[in-house]
């Protein structure tokens, strides 16, 4: 078992378990913390995939900024703890879980039926280059200039929007 596989197993276990825990904890704060753990696990997987830039962004932006925002709001609103999720409308919820399971099985079926790995030869070197900040930055400011600009407007709109919705005092 190579290190790569070992790391894969470790990171994926972290991600999967933290994801499951995240949706099953009744306390929102704990859920949020598990989600951060999940993001960290994902960051590890990204590194494993030679996506250094994304891995770093994942930690800084997602785990760092976004999740802090979540925690902040949770703390601010202090929602009461949820009851066990099966208490209200148990049939519907079991049904929901069942459907999710079915979709999972469907996706797995599709995945192993079409075998994407057959058409993909792992090209290590290229992928190492493609994940660097340099490569991505270059792409971002040349080929992907338009989405980049648009993303600026997106953030602008989100800022303004959040401002309208959450601002307390009304002039």
């Amino acid at each position, binding site marked *: 078992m190579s290190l790569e596989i070992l790391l894969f197993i470790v990171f994926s276990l972290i991600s999967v378990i933290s994801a499951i825990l995240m949706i099953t904890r009744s306390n*929102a704060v704990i859920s949020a913390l598990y989600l951060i753990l999940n993001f960290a696990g994902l960051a590890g997987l990204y590194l494993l995939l030679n996506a250094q830039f994304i891995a770093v962004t994942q930690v800084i932006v997602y785990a760092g900024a976004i999740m802090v925002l979540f925690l902040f709001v949770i703390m601010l609103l202090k*929602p009461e703890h949820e009851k066990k999720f099966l208490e209200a409308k148990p049939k519907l919820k079991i049904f929901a879980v069942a459907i999710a399971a079915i979709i999972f099985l469907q996706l797995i079926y599709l995945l192993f039926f079409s075998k994407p790995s057959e058409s993909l030869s792992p090209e290590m070197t290229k992928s190492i280059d493609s994940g660097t900040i340099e490569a991505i930055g270059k792409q971002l400011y040349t080929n992907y200039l338009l989405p980049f600009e648009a993303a600026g407007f997106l953030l602008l709109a989100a800022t303004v*929007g959040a401002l309208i919705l959450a601002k307390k005092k009304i002039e």
Partner: protein
Amino acid sequence: MTIPIEYYLALSAFMFLVGVTGVLIRRNAIVVFMSIELMLNSANLTLVAFSSYLGNSVGQIFVFFVMTVAAAEAAVGLAIIIALFRNKLTLNIDEINILKW
């Protein structure tokens, strides 16, 4: 990279569906929202995995934009939740059902 890409994809699919399950069963609006974030992240994993195995950075750039979007959504979404909480003092989405039929 000796791990077949299917493993990554299966992992991603599983987490995606965990996120879906979270959306479907949790009652706290913030947690539902977090589950959506989980879905987005799983999708990101797919993109990055493909990106690496294909050897082009398009997927990773896309993930970058997804993160941007997620950030923006988080800002707006949490603002909406705050605004709602101010009026209703609850985050339980089972109780948010005045508009129906």
